[in-house]
């Protein structure tokens, strides 16, 4: 994919949602330093559908954490929506996570004692919205993933696929810039997995930027672009025919 060269001191182009520049992340493990990322530079444009692949230890989880603003890099730059977030403080990162990023986890991570509606409401609570508006928007998000009739069900009253739909609704409810999915089908059977992949495709078609970490080839095949990491650097970055 042809990309304009980014140099330190530049600002990204307007339609670039994610830009990392020579991103490194090192972990201090007592005596030795583990270099999980050794300079990753990628650009992801609005409404791209990107799969990040790589064997375990390749640094894809570290990259996801950085892109998801759960972690800060050791060096390099990270720009999200034309805002440099690589040197933001804790609470500012929390705000970015709240407004710009929708997480979908392998294990769903729903609150077991709260019903679907309340689970979806959570990001809006931290956004400081009033109860009425929260409920309306959460209900809308649930309808969007096809769970309009399951709002008062608790996670243990829902199937695996339905739980992941609730999680996706939760990720979408704040209208994030990117939908960040970490092995979203890892805990689902293949049929349900396909359904969820269909949902991601639908969301992508309606304009959502999607970044998905996976190690399954056929899941990655759904994406328009596949970035492969190896030993903390980008090994391949290629578009593929849909």
């Amino acid at each position, binding site marked *: 994919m042809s990309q304009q060269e980014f140099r330190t001191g530049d600002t990204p182009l307007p339609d670039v949602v994610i830009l990392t520049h020579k991103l490194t992340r090192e972990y201090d493990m007592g005596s030795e330093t583990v270099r999980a990322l050794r300079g990753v530079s990628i650009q992801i444009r609005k409404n791209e559908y990107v799969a990040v692949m790589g064997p375990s230890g390749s640094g894809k989880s570290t990259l996801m954490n950085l892109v998801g603003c759960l972690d800060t890099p050791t060096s390099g730059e990270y720009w999200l929506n034309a805002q440099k977030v690589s040197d933001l403080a804790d609470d500012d990162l*929390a705000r970015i996570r709240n407004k710009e990023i929708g997480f979908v986890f392998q294990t769903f991570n729903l609150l077991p004692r709260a019903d679907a509606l309340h689970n979806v409401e959570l990001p809006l*609570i931290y956004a400081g919205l009033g109860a009425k508006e929260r409920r309306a928007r959460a209900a809308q998000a649930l309808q969007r993933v096809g769970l309009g009739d399951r709002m008062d069900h608790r996670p243990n009253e829902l199937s695996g696929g339905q739980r992941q739909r609730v999680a996706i609704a939760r990720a979408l409810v704040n209208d994030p810039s990117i939908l960040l999915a970490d092995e979203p089908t890892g805990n689902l059977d293949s049929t349900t997995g396909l359904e969820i992949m269909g949902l991601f495709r639908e969301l992508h078609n309606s304009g959502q930027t999607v970044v998905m970490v996976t190690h399954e080839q056929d899941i990655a095949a759904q994406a328009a672009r596949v970035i492969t990491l190896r030993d903390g650097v980008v090994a391949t970055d290629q578009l593929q025919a849909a």
Partner: protein
Amino acid sequence: MHFFEAVRMALQTIRAQKLKSGFSLLGVFVGVASLIAAWGIANGVNRYMTEKFAQTLYGVNTFQVRRQPMFNANVPDSVWRAWRRRPRIRFSDAEAITSGLTVSVITAWQSSDQVTVAFANKEARDIELTAASERYFDIKNLRIEIGRPFTGEENRSGAPVAVLGEAVAKRLFSDRTPLGKSVRIGGVPYRVIGVVEHQGSILGFPLDRFVVVPALSPAQNLVNPPGILDAFLVKAHSDLEMREAMSEAEGIMRSRRHLRPQQDNNFVLDTSEGVQRFWAGISRILVTVIPGIVIVSLVIGGIVIMNIMLMAVAERTREIGLRKSLGARRADVLRQFLAESTTIATVGAVFGILAGIGLTFVINALSPLPASVSPTSIVLGVVMGGGVGVVAGVYPASRAARLDPITALRQE
């Protein structure tokens, strides 16, 4: 995140984990309940002491000229022996004060001791025999239920007539009327002319086991040597007049006893303030003991809550990680767990208050101790309960707030 939102979440968690929350609020519950009940007892007894006890034993605006105070707490032996060496109050002292006072008052003589009162083959033992003058009933506010009190004439002539306390009348006569019957008081026959209204009891001591006879009647020998009084009672119309009468009485007594200006009184002018001082001594003990009990249970309650909250933080690490990934700031997580511990403690305090109020009523109904709930203690209970929750929640909540979202999310 709004504070109300945090409390709502806390209530949800408490409802979801009823047993665990129940245990964690136990400490605060016990602490606050004991605070309310103990305070209620102190409060009730206090009111009783100041309003009723003092009036029953002394009468309103009344002072007594005595050899020594009626109530005394922790008096050393040396003081006690000094009191016993003082001259006693004599009839002549009483007469001198009566004629010397310029303030308008009513007065009575009083001497008492324990005797046995008998009628036919029935006996009432340990009855307080009071040899008094006729205004004694007015000063002590003893109302006559049936019959009449004795008159001034009967008092001066030393007529053998008696007014019985309600318990004595019941003991000797059951349901029959005692009026006109002859009872033996220390072997001397007396004619019953009246029975005093039911007085009840005070801190468990019955107040109806007494007999009043004229001060100059034959039984005076049973209570004191001739010409000697236990107390000379003076009742004025107001507190101010009582003070005035007291200083006049003091002057009269000092001059009768030839005391030089630098010498101390060798008699006392006893008022209900004396009883109240005596009670203040006891309530000081309560005031030091009660906070001890309350503080110990609140500290224990706080530790329990802190541990439960630490457990909750450990159990819900993943939830905390998730909330952070969804945009919860440190302050949000901190507030959530603080609200939880505070809500648990406050719910415990509320139950404690209800139990404490219940306990106070039970104590009031089933024991001789008067008890009444003090509004201050309720406010204090809520404040202290909630405070314990905040204090106990700070450490667990700050641990939760500091959790790294990545590590927290990865935790199984």
